């Protein structure tokens, strides 16, 4: 039977359907019109029309991170593609599976500086896991399926498929996804059993162990989180998490020390500094985590579980690498631990916990809510209290509010926390929340925002209105780019160069202009009422929470410092000294 011929655009849609794609985020333009035409003629795939391509990519990231499925983006050539670059880089840094389809000018025009032409594969090569320029319709189906394979296997990441307009019109046969095989790129997910056995032996001998877990556990799927939780509870070891890993282990559990790193808790950072065995599962020793490298956890042996061999020994030398997917590794670890008759030195562990409890008693996140100004920490603490028991999805923008959210909100399950960790993209949170809400229409989805970040993708409110997404935007409005101001206070003599925003919009009126509900809160007495009203309003809501403009985010491990050189909030952080070497680190 001769294979049925389809147009390139039809092949694209069929490939998306066969890959299980239900929703794509995009923005039309000249070079993708055939694909939009094919979209128009079908009803399997829902298209969400954003207001700028950057919003589409972040929305797809939010969708991907909250579902574990790849997010799909469709944008046009030239500016459509270049607007997507920030989101692609963001997804690259945080290992988020995305497939981004970009239109391209017709093949015969490529290289001629045609209208809306740009070298998309050239521009996106360093910020994607892989990219393709499809030059013949015959390879389109294969490339589409391969793009999904690459985006989702091993360490996930964004993949761009650049499709010239003539290829979208051209006829070619469709190739089913089962018939596409890739000779290269088959990342190993099962660890060497020998390595897992050694890891368990090291764990049995540990006197001051700590689990240090990251986004790799989340990416591995909910099963990895369940296995991690079981293993941590069986061992009785303390556990800390990176920003990206929050939710993999229940945030309110006693064994959880809170987030570690630059704005991590006192107990988490000191446990990392003082441990004799570090068990890293799916984290990458990022500079926000390690602080000064030569003083990072000096006395510990280190196990590093990662699916990506290039993460091993990149910045921190480890004693035992275990290459494999977190769920596979944790499953084997758990089986070995259960079968093992030996147990770790309980006396040593008790001693270690006593030490940790002392650090905990320092209450490093304490703040004083007094007077008429709302402390941002108080607003978040109330948000936590008033949403507890609900299955809430939180996204954030980037800055102080993001760190406070990580400190004060408790994540009990994976895939409930969407934040731009590696790239630190202001403007990520609201479009990401949009993507989350599309995936979970009935869930409570809150973007914890700052007034500066929210302005970066404010146009997406229009998308939120169009699709009647009941997203809540919880702005901690301190009128400053808070983290910039904090660094200027600590490192640049309090010269607040360009970190104050004059002429901010009236967020209540702005919400109303976009068809959302605006709520303002300026008094600590109104915080609870405002939050409850926000939760109970079945429409998009913007909360303008007017908070103390001068509050700083502590604890803080300043650039160039070690974990045990943390600044605490009640020590008068402004008097902190930072070395010249420290100042050059961002």
């Amino acid at each position, binding site marked *: 039977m001769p294979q049925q011929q389809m147009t390139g655009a039809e092949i694209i849609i069929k490939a998306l359907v066969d890959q299980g794609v239900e929703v794509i985020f995009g923005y039309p333009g000249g070079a993708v019109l055939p694909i939009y035409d094919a979209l128009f003629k079908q009803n399997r795939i829902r298209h969400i029309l954003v207001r700028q391509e950057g919003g589409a990519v972040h929305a797809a990231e939010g969708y991907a991170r909250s579902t574990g499925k790849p997010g799909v983006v469709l944008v046009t050539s030239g500016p459509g593609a270049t607007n997507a670059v920030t989101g692609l880089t963001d997804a690259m840094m945080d290992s988020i599976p995305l497939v981004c389809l970009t239109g391209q000018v017709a093949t015969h025009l490529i290289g001629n500086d045609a209208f809306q032409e740009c070298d998309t594969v050239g521009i996106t090569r360093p910020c994607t896991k892989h990219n393709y320029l499809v030059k013949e319709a015959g390879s389109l189906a294969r490339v589409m399926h391969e793009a999904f394979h690459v985006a989702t296997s091993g360490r996930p990441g964004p993949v761009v498929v650049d499709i010239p307009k003539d290829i979208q019109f051209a006829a070619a046969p469709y190739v089913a996804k089962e018939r596409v095989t890739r000779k290269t790129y088959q990342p190993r997910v099962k660890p060497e059993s020998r390595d897992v056995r050694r890891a368990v032996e090291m764990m049995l001998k540990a006197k001051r162990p700590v689990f240090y877990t990251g986004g790799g556990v989340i990416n591995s799927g909910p099963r990895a989180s369940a296995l991690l939780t079981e293993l941590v509870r069986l061992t009785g070891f303390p556990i800390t998490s990176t920003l990206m890993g929050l939710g993999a282990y229940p945030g309110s559990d006693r064994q959880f020390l809170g987030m570690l790193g630059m704005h991590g808790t006192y107990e988490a950072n000191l446990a990392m500094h003082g441990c004799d065995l570090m068990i890293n599962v799916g984290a990458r020793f990022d500079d926000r985590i390690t602080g000064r490298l030569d003083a990072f956890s000096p006395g510990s042996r280190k196990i590093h579980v990662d699916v990506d*061999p290039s993460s091993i*020994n*990149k910045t921190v*030398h480890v*004693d035992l690498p275990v290459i494999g997917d977190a769920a596979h590794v944790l499953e084997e670890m758990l089986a070995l631990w259960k079968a093992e008759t030996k147990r770790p030195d309980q006396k040593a562990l008790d001693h270690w916990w006593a030490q940790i409890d002392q650090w905990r008693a320092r209450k490093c996140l304490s703040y004083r809510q007094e007077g008429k100004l709302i402390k941002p920490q108080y607003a978040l603490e109330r948000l936590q209290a008033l949403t507890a028991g609900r299955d809430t999805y939180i996204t954030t923008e980037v800055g102080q509010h993001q760190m406070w959210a990580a400190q004060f909100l408790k994540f009990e399950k994976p895939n409930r926390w969407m934040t731009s960790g590696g790239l630190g993209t202001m403007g990520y949170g609201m479009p990401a929340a949009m993507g989350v809400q599309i995936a979970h229409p009935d869930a409570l989805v809150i973007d914890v925002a700052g007034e500066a970040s929210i302005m970066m993708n404010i146009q997406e409110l229009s998308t939120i209105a169009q699709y009647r997404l009941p997203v809540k935007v919880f702005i901690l409005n301190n009128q400053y780019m808070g983290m910039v101001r904090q660094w200027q206070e600590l490192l640049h003599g309090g010269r607040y160069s360009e970190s104050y925003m004059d002429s901010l919009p009236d967020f209540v009126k702005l919400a109303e202009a976009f068809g959302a509900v605006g709520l303002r809160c300026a008094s600590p007495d109104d915080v609870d009422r405002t939050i409850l009203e926000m939760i109970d309003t079945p429409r998009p809501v913007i909360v303008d929470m007017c908070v103390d403009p001068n509050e700083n985010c502590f604890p803080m491990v300043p650039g160039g410092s070690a974990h045990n050189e943390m600044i605490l909030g009640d020590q008068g952080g402004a008097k902190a000294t930072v070395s010249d070497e420290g100042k050059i680190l961002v």
Partner: protein
Amino acid sequence: MALPSKEIRQHTIAVLVDNEAGVLARVIGLFASRGYNIESLTVAAVDEANNLSRITVVTSGPEMVIEQIKAQLGRLVPVHKVSDLTTEGKFLSRELALVKVVGLGEKRVEALRIADIFRARVVDSSTSSFVFEISGSTEKIDAFIALMRELGMVDLSRTGVVAISRGERKL
């Protein structure tokens, strides 16, 4: 466990890749964006049936960086195989150079004499110039070039290093 050596060493790495558009840009882009050295890089198709090219890259760095380079190369999608020839047994490495020397009289005679010692071949000649073709190790070619520079070398083209392991082992 012993810490990895900080000593900077030269490594010759062979990479088997899909022969497709952009693959060289991916490899070079990786080295550029992560700040790795490229001392030599060569590429050519080696297997038409399977559409494969072989890249030989000479780089240098401390052990941790070399391991990173190999791991980063290994995760590029079109890469089939990465082999560190320097650490995986004995290997051969060769370059070819074309060296143009212009001059008259004694210098011209001396250039020819030295070329003979180095087993360089004359592949072009005029009454006032030679083009020598020389192949061999990088050190040998460096030595030849240093001598030719004194004898009127005006132009030089080198292929960069190609390398292969000794014995029966294949990439």
